[in-house]
């Protein structure tokens, strides 16, 4: 489903070069729910940006759902993002001037979908996140947890194969965080592959597989349960 081989990504500014990803290799199978953890600045967001085609990479190979990404034009990358990937962001990124319905509509319009189909998809996506009755509220009229659920509805309305989430619960209290996590699990059970970046070990533990990024590289492929004890020990040391 997602296969990255020896990916590297370097950010260059006038003064410094940051090797955000180095020799980064990772495979995610269809239907998996993978949690990515790691210290701040280790390259998690960079990985997610490359995986979600938000950013290009310098060397290596990346196959997304069988498509070789490296040769694609900007427009083709936009189309792939639109059709295959759903994004969930830490700060929700809803458009403040559009109501909930129109927010969920944004990616569908870019897909040039007929109005009736869009309406039906928006209704069912809002239904899944439990906010159908709020369709004509503005984002500012909703709580943080509700806003993130709207963002999830936006991400899944286009029926993507992939859901990429960067700290989706980072701005939420623990109760709302759990609701969002429940929702993600539910979506995963319906067949969507999910890659979740998080700082929260408790949330990470709920994923099927846990991957740790340190210094721009995968440090561990093992499932979370097997490495839990040393990781905790390391954190306490």
């Amino acid at each position, binding site marked *: 489903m997602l296969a990255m081989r020896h990916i590297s990504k370097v950010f260059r500014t006038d003064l410094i070069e940051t090797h955000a990803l180095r020799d980064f290799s990772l495979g995610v199978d269809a239907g998996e729910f993978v949690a990515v953890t790691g210290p701040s600045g280790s390259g998690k967001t960079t990985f997610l940006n490359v995986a979600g085609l938000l950013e290009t990479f310098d060397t290596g190979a990346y196959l997304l759902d069988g498509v070789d990404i490296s040769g694609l034009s900007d427009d083709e990358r936009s*189309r792939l993002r639109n059709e295959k990937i759903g994004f969930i962001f830490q700060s929700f990124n809803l458009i403040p001037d559009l109501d909930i319905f129109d927010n969920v509509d944004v990616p569908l319009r*870019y897909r040039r979908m007929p109005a009736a189909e869009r309406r039906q998809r928006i209704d069912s996506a809002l239904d899944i996140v439990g906010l159908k009755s709020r369709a004509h509220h503005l984002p500012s009229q909703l709580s943080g947890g509700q806003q993130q659920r709207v963002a999830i509805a936006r991400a899944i309305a286009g029926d993507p194969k992939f859901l990429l989430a960067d700290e989706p619960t980072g701005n939420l209290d623990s109760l709302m965080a759990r609701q969002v996590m429940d929702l993600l699990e539910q979506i995963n059970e319906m067949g969507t592959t999910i890659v979740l970046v998080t700082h929260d070990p408790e949330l990470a533990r709920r994923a099927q597989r846990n991957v740790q990024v340190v210094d721009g590289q995968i440090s561990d492929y093992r499932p979370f349960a097997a490495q839990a004890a040393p990781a905790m020990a390391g954190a306490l040391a």
Partner: protein
Amino acid sequence: MFRDIRPVLSALLRNRTGAVLVGLQVAIALAVLVNAVYIVKQRVDLIGRPTGLDVGNIFVLSSAGFTQDHDRYATMREDLAWLRSLPDVRAATSTNAIPLSGGGSSTGIATTPEASSEQTVPMNYFQVDEDGLEALGVTLAAGRNFRADEILPPDLNSDRAIPQVIITKALARSLFRTDDAVGKVVYDAFGRPTTVIGVIEHMQGSWLSWDKVDHVALVPEVASWSDNAYLVRTRPGTRAAVMRQAEEHLAASNTTRLIKFVRPLDYYRDRSYLSDRNMAVFLVTVTVLLAGVTALGIFALATFNVNVRTRQVGTRRAVGARRADIVRYFLVENWLVTTAGVVLGCALALAAGYQLSRQFELPRLDLYYLTGGVLALWLLGLAAAWQPARRAAKISPSMATRTI
């Protein structure tokens, strides 16, 4: 371009302040622009009217005697004979007035000896000799020129009948309702008859702001103005040289007089149109400045909208917008603002046009100008928003995941 307007509009309506201000600016710009351009066009048309005269090759020379023994008519004969002898002079005549200059003589004539004042047609006359037609460069449409023996001696009391006259077609039409006036008789204010012997195609007289500026008659008489004045027509390209030569020679040839001025005929036309020209230049300047300020306002609004929406643009890109979609978003948004302004501006422009036409007796605003103005502002708006829109399209989709 016009797909997906609804969400753009609803987002715009939630952020009205800037849009309303720029829309108003567009409206005012349209109202001023359309009327200014219309007025300028009228001035330009006015200035561009044909004179019927060979303006570019004619100059005027005036001299005045200052001694007791100065004989102005003898001087005039000598001067004209000398001028006519120059190889580059096509013709020279004495005259009582300078065409296009704002100064001249007028009187009323009619088709019957006892005409009422309503039946009298006002006209502007020039006393010229047999060289008059050629010196003015006007075209004779019918009839003939004056013969040398028909030129009457000077008469300061102007108290006698004039046997022949040459008139313009425009004057002929006002008198006889036809161009075909040769052989017809007109009467002066005292009921004395004059026969029309020639009809001039077209000629503007002394007063360019007069609606009957082309009601002109040439009278075969030695000019009896206070000073001697000659209209001299040169061969193309020789005017400046002939003017210098004439001024030098005539100043030296007769020491009882002074050369008062030697001026090209263009000087008088330009002077008569000075206020029209200044008005046009002023209005063009105002219009250009206003268009510039409006473009700047649109540019500033678009730039602001792009800047406050970097993350939104990144998010749109992340969920599938192509660069072209982002450009389109900002152009459509800007187009909606300009269009709202343009609609209001049409109403303002018509109201302003109506007021202007009432106060200054101008013709009513032509709707072509309004259409042109609307198109111009639409284009101006698109051009002004183009750079910010392109900049927005360059915002990286990874802006969406950046935590600030």
